[in-house]
């Protein structure tokens, strides 16, 4: 098991900087998920750990040893690629066993280890097929088996499930979780699917445009987003974000017209100074007109989710999404009253988007 330390790592391609200084500590045996929008540099960071990309600046160490100058084979990492990257001309058996062959493991031991790994991911019936003769899910499992067979210090996954259908993805997710529980190998998993990230991660790293936005447990990140970006990015449906200012009576005036009673935030910022107020849809309740803090809104449309539904509403010009569990039918144009839950309001600076603590 290995600990990974990333210190001040930057990456430039020719003149363009794509990673602007990343500091992360990954404990031994931890399952870390890197999450971020497309093009933010997740793969690049992962590939720098793997040794497939040069590190422009900074330092990466694995088990306390700086690996900047080491070849991939000297770093003890195994990687699962997005498109599987199986060797098309080799059978499944040879694909899985290639690393052992390269390492000159004697044939009997090699066969035994390949068999053991193949059993653990239920690939035994397919050992003599070529990758071209397998389904997507089976190929995915070959890629996992190939990474596992070497018993590496670190597992790296680059969006390994993005080519699978939703159901298979869920199945593979629990497979990965199980593997991590059984083997306890330090793992770094890149994805842009937040459900995947939330369910898998011991520690979540949110990246945006080559920078780390937040590092923390999934619940921490969800409950206390460190920036407006994270607040917007994590959570589905996304958090409601309103740009506006407080008035003297503890009301928040949204720039487009809505007014919300938010007395508990009184004094956090001087009246008149601009901030961003964030409220998750599940923190907006439907209430009666006389509830304290209730404000009127007109239902725009309703999105059914099965057990619950999303109300898209208009509150005096401000667009609001609220999660509703009441099953009473709501038609477009129905007037309703909504209220914000007191304890889960988020404030962000309008200038740099950082969280304002209160």
């Amino acid at each position, binding site marked *: 098991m290995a600990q990974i330390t990333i210190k001040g790592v930057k990456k430039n391609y020719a003149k363009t900087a794509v990673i602007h200084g990343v500091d992360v500590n990954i404990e031994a045996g931890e399952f870390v998920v890197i999450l971020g929008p497309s093009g933010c540099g997740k793969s690049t960071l992962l590939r720098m750990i*793997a*040794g*497939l990309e040069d590190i422009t600046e900074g330092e990466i160490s694995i088990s306390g040893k700086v690996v900047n100058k080491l*070849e*991939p*084979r000297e770093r003890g*990492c*195994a*990687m699962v*690629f*997005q*498109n599987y*990257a*199986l*060797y*098309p*001309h080799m059978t499944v058996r040879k694909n899985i066993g*290639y*690393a052992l062959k*390269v*390492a000159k493991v004697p044939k009997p031991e090699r066969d035994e280890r390949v068999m053991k790994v193949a059993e653990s991911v239920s690939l035994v019936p397919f050992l003599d097929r*070529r990758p*071209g003769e397998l389904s997507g899910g089976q190929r995915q499992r070959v890629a996992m088996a*190939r990474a596992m067979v*070497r018993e590496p210090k670190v597992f790296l996954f680059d969006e390994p499930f993005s080519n699978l259908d939703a159901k298979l993805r869920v199945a593979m997710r629990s497979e990965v979780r199980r593997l991590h529980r059984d083997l306890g190998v330090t793992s770094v998993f890149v994805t842009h699917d937040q459900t995947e990230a939330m369910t898998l991660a011991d520690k979540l790293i949110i990246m945006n445009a080559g920078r780390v936005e937040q590092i923390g447990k999934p619940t921490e990140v969800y409950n206390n987003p460190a920036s407006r970006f994270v607040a917007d990015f994590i959570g589905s449906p996304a958090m409601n974000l309103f740009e506006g200012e407080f008035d003297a009576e503890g009301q928040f005036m949204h720039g487009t017209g809505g007014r919300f009673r938010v007395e508990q935030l009184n004094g956090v910022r001087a009246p008149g100074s601009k901030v961003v107020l964030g409220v998750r849809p599940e923190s907006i309740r439907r209430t009666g007109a006389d509830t304290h803090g209730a404000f009127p809104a007109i239902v725009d449309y309703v999105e059914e989710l099965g057990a619950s539904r999303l109300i898209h509403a208009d509150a005096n010009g401000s667009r609001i999404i609220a999660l509703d569990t009441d099953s009473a039918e709501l038609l477009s144009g129905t007037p309703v009253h909504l209220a914000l839950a007191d304890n889960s309001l988020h404030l962000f600076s309008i200038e740099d988007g950082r969280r304002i603590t209160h």
Partner: protein
Amino acid sequence: MERRAYYRNGWLPWLLIGPQLILVLVFFYWPTTQALYWAFTLEQPWGGGNTWVGLDNFLAIFRDREYWTTVVRSAFYAIVTTGLSMTVALTLAAFVDRSLKGTRFFQSVYVWPYAIAAPAAGVAFRFIFAPESGLIGSINAIWPGIWNPAINGFHALAMVIVCHAWLGIGYNFIFFLAALQMIPRSITEAGAMDGARPFQRLIDLQLPLIAPTAFFLLIMNLISSFTDSFGLIDVMTEGGPIGQTEVMVYKIYFDGFKGLDYSGAAAQSIVLMLLVIGLTFVQFKWVERRVHYN
């Protein structure tokens, strides 16, 4: 979809294919017919036209010890030239493929030799390998006689082979590079993660995946070594010293135009033609059955 052009007047299509047709007729079919005619006939000793002799001309060359020496030498020439040219080209292509920067530059630099006419290259290489000047000259000054293609047949053959291989490198390089670049990057990266060094990745992963291209090049190079060697040998050694660089195609020329044995030379050229047709046939068979990985 049917792709067919219709011409309203009858002579235009003929006019369009005319030049090509004339070229093929004049430079391929006519000489081939002539060769066939000569190969199966013999000029009578005292004049009076040719007589049909069946396979006699072929039997004569097959019985000729010297002919077989030439065949073996040609095979050696073809195998070594092809091996050398393809190995060097593959090595260069592998290097260029690994560091993509400047690929364009290398592509054009390496393909230039292909555009040089063989005799011109031959003249250049004669100077490069001249025993009395240049690099070789200084080596010869230290150990006299260590290199002299003018009197040593093996040196002469090596010189022609190196020149021929050099000419083919650019062509082979382009094909190898294109094939290597077709392999998804992640496959070699997976190999690197599996611990394989670049050379091992080349052997285990890249070569099998470019096998169709390699095979195509193998056949093309063999054919070229059998047929295109004429210009080089004529300029560099004229088959010498004492016939030690005489390969099949040069012997055809020598027996026919120097020895005036048209029938023997024609028979030889039919044999060579069958050899090339055979190689081409193998090529086509392979292309048909070629393994496709997805």
